């Protein structure tokens, strides 16, 4: 826990880390306080359709007359929810699989990695679409689909860390002392896995958000009238000439949010890497 505070402080010292942390904090605030911040709600038709940004409707209105600003706020909820839960699924399953594959190696490793490689061979969006088609549309199924798609990358990362940790002298030492396998995994190997794993999780969040946006854009994923930045972008396609703000704001928020997670992930990697050497 002491180390956690230390890590946060180091992140803060790095200008990029600071931007990442602040930015994501703002996005989280947006999502959490969406009902308080939005004046009109995401679904009510409150103004003239396709009205440009004004003091009343900060981001303008869409073709149904809904306040785009409110929809953006609620869309943040969706993006973060999907991101966190999908990555949660992927990280948990990937961690367990990677740990087993890396520690025991042999045929267990080969079977698990073979399955992971098959998943890896498909472009992630294609795979997500396929799984979605099987499961059906909607928020929950989207989260599951994106979760499954991200399992291989976690399994890979964890497995690599475990294999390199196994070779460490002090792990050999623990074996020679007679420490049980479970205790070795928890006490000696896991701390070495946590760092690359955390970096991977941060980057996976950004990828999950992008995947959700893409799927919603394509009509899968989140269904109308629920707002999602991706579906907002899709709806904006027909009205690009008349009301470009319908596209600009969702696109901007997608880009910036993904960028913020990437920046944070990079910074986290820099902060954690030298500590890996310890």
């Amino acid at each position, binding site marked *: 826990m002491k180390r956690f505070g230390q890590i946060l402080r180091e992140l803060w010292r790095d200008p990029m880390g600071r931007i990442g942390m602040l930015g994501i904090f703002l996005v989280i605030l947006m999502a959490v306080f969406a009902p308080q911040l939005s004046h009109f709600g995401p679904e009510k038709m409150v103004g003239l359709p396709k009205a440009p940004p004004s003091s009343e409707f900060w981001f303008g209105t869409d073709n149904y007359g809904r306040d785009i600003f409110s929809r953006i706020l609620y869309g943040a909820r969706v993006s973060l929810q999907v991101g966190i839960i999908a990555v949660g699924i992927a990280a948990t399953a990937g961690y367990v699989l990677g740990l087993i594959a890396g520690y025991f190696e042999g045929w267990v490793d080969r079977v698990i990695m073979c399955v992971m490689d098959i998943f890896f061979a498909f472009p992630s969006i294609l795979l997500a679409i396929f799984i979605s088609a099987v499961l059906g549309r909607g928020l929950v199924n989207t989260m599951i689909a994106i979760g499954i798609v991200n399992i291989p990358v976690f399994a890979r990362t964890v497995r690599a860390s475990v294999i390199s940790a196994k070779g*460490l*002298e*002090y792990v*050999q*030492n*623990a*074996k*020679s*002392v*007679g*420490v*049980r396998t479970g*205790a070795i995994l928890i*006490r*000696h190997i896991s*701390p070495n896995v946590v760092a690359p794993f955390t970096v991977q999780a941060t980057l996976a969040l950004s990828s999950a958000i992008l995947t959700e946006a893409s799927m919603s854009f394509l009509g899968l994923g989140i269904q109308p009238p629920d707002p999602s930045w991706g579906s907002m972008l899709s709806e904006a396609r027909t009205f690009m000439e008349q009301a470009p703000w319908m596209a600009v704001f969702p696109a901007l928020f997608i880009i910036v949010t993904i960028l913020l997670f990437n920046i944070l992930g990079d910074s986290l990697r820099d902060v954690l890497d030298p500590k890996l050497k*310890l």
Partner: protein
Amino acid sequence: MSGHNVILDVQNLQTYFPIQGGVVRKTVGYVHAVEDVSFQIREQETFGLVGESGCGKSTTGRTILRLIEPTSGHIYFDGQDLCALDKESMRQKRRDMQLVFQDPYASLNPRMTVRKLLEEPLKTHFSLSQAGMDEQVLWISQAVGLSPEQLERYPHQFSGGQRQRISIARALITKPRFVVADEPVSALDVSIQAQILNLLMGLQKDLKLSYLFISHDLNVVRHISNRVGVMYLGRIMELGDTEDVYHTPMHPYTQALLSAIPKRDPSEEKARIRLEGDVPSPASPPPGCAFHNRCPHCTAACKEQVPESRELSPGHWVACHLYD
């Protein structure tokens, strides 16, 4: 020494590592790391295993503890064959047989305090209360020369010699009967080496330990061992009481090895036996005697037959056709 029982009896130990090649990763050959090694260690005795890099001495030490699985052979510890034990029984046996590693920097988990490092073996093998563990931790840390304040520090805050003390404490806290020391002083400065060797010898007396002392440093081995085995390319070439082997080396390799040690005194005249060439690869050991291609006394028999180990004088064994 001769009155004590045999605590470790290694018979015909072999450890081969498969070499994988090709796309399908078939086994295309084997590295003969340990080849037909046999020796005995008595209680409270130090057996030195000496040889140059790649001779298989470290692999022998780890195979005896089954940290590396032997390919064939028997390892009798207190009369019980370790190779016949299942994983869990072997794990429990580790309470009695420990390993001290060479690298004091890498063999201690940098995220654990000294106290936690010393408690881990206790937690693994015994169920003691915290007070019970504290007592043991205090006892062993004092025995190796660490002070109570140092128990709360992390390994990186200590010097090489101090870390090696921590490693030794960790190995001895379960009061084992047999300790394999794998190059325990090689990474330390000369003046610290002497401190650690004294510590090991003192602890041996106090705790009635038996040591398998593995090292490439002939002087260190001579100082600490009662008996010594000289290894080359996975085989034991010569074995006997330390003073016998050092004073009257019989095997040509032992003779060359001892003559290669740098002088202790600049005015000393030293006749050096030159060994030409390099050590053959253990992946393709030469036929016959492993040493024949570098031996100044090589004969036709040496190129074809592996020499058997013979007892030339009481307790002094040599594997060489010169003595057939």
